[in-house]
């Protein structure tokens, strides 16, 4: 067992891999992650010359292309910090780096392909175990923790009803997340709770939400839009039925999927929902007293500023 305080100290400086979505449509996630890091005194060292992790698309051409892409990101992250920990807030990136790590540790064929492409590309082959990938949730939970957030936020989110939505890539498939499902204190793949814990520590009221790990149809958001709209509508309606005012997200694909299909559901199926959609980092930022513009809340498609003003959160 690693000493918890020692680990917390180590993680105060991590390599940061934003990924393509956070530079584009999910920019609010990037801005708010950096803003809370600054506020909390945590250091983010950007991974140099990173590339796309392969997202959900590349594996359908061939899964090993994704393994290579993610392994290159990991090789860029090695030595970016002393502890070789890379933090990826995007669920897709996080999932792919974890998957590459697992495949490289367990599958000779993956190792051979990655070695071959890396040699041609002219860089050192990444070897399993050289870096550790964590999610933004792990990062806040392990460095600041619930106690730290309680002290810093003084329950600022009190009275805010939140449905925490984790999505698919953070928990499935189970085998690529060996640190999850390890009993008390660890994350659960069937009922994840890290986001619930952090937001509750900031004073929010988490509503009962059975669709925490339901799928938003993000992979087919454009190629099979009606399917995605139906899946998103399920999530939005379930959140509202359970009294949520806000859905907290931790993935740019889920986030923009919920936002886009909330509008599309109204246009196409005449089903209007009013629940607002915010990144959990934006909510934590508000709890820490950071202004909504500094958290990129105005760049979200889902309009939530008037609501936040009404709640006295800005």
């Amino acid at each position, binding site marked *: 067992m690693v000493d918890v305080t020692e680990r917390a100290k180590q993680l105060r400086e991590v390599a940061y891999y934003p990924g*393509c*979505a956070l*530079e*584009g*449509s999910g920019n609010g996630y990037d801005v708010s992650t950096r803003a809370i890091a600054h506020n909390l005194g945590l250091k983010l060292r950007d991974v140099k*010359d*990173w*590339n*796309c992790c*392969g*997202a*959900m*698309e*590349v*594996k*359908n*051409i*061939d*899964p*090993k*292309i994704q393994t*290579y*892409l993610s392994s*290159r990101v990991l090789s860029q992250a090695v030595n970016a910090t002393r502890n070789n920990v890379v933090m990826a807030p995007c669920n897709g990136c996080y999932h792919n780096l974890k998957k590459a790590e697992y495949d490289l540790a367990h599958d000779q064929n993956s190792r051979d*392909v990655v070695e*071959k*492409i890396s040699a*041609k*590309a*002219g*860089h050192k082959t990444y070897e399993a175990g050289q870096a550790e990938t964590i999610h933004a949730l792990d990062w806040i939970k392990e460095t600041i923790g619930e106690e730290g957030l309680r002290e810093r936020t003084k329950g600022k989110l009190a009275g805010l009803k939140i449905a925490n939505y984790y999505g*698919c890539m953070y*928990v*499935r*498939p*189970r085998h690529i997340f060996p640190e999850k499902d390890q009993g008390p204190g660890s994350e659960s*793949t069937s009922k994840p709770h890290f986001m619930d814990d952090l937001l509750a520590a900031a004073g929010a009221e988490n509503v009962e939400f059975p669709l925490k790990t*339901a*799928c938003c*149809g993000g*992979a*087919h958001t*454009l*190629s*099979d839009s009606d*399917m*995605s709209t*139906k*899946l998103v509508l399920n999530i939005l309606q379930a959140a509202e039925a359970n009294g949520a005012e806000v859905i907290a997200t931790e993935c740019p694909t889920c986030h923009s999927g919920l*936002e*886009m299909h909330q*509008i*599309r559901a109204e*246009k*196409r199926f005449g089903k209007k929902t009013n629940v607002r959609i915010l990144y959990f980092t934006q909510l934590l930022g508000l709890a820490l007293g950071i202004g909504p513009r500094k958290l990129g809340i*105005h*760049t*979200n*498609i889902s309009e939530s*500023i008037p609501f936040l003003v009404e709640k006295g959160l800005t």
Partner: protein
Amino acid sequence: MPIHEKSLIRPENITTHDDLVIEGVDVSGHWSTFIETRVIADYNEAMEEEIAALPGGENIHRCWQCGSCTNSCTVHAIEPRFNPRYWIYLIRTGMESELLRDKDLIWQCVSCNKCTYACPRDVVPEGVMKATAHWLEMKGHVPESPSMIFDKIFTEQIVEHGRIEDTKVLMQFLKRTNQPLMQDWLKQIVMNIAARLPVKWGLKSAWSFVFHPRTRGWKKAGAALQDYIIEVEQHHKAALGAGTSNAASNDNPPQRKLHAAE
């Protein structure tokens, strides 16, 4: 769909005759319904092996038909005909014509991995769905699915630049699938955010649209990936060429070339 709600005889196999007399007995009309007998003889024994040779399909032989995949399936809940357990059964038994009835559904798998999470035999049904969708396209049974077009555009951009630019992927996708660039819901989204976004943000996205974000020093990696893609595609084709399928048509060659970084 629960099995007891399922009609076990397909409507096209049920016939009634307006005017039919058999051995002096008038059997016209609905009182005497005939069921067409069906004998399955067109097995494609190579199908399982071919699908197993495509990425994702490797573990199909492990399936013992428990149905956990279909039970947990995201798409099945919305489209009851989407049935991974049944399709795996058809593939393993070589019932190609039966599988082809659902050929336009299989690509709809959203890769949520609930099946892989639930599967007690590590079949990775999600992978099998992707491999089957590939197989259908490569054999010319179906045109390239919108999902495959999207995946290709995405991969092309990565091979070329190392990174993705959202707007460009969106525009190229709508163009290649012959859809209007301004969908009504997209218009609504643009209008929603345009009003409250600072000019700086607009300039920034215009900038990244014109000057595609790219990874420094990507050229060699991109070329290496392109080589690898060509190699695996030849490998996949060879794996399918080895089998015999009665439906493989040469007039309709699978369009699987990635034309990036040329």
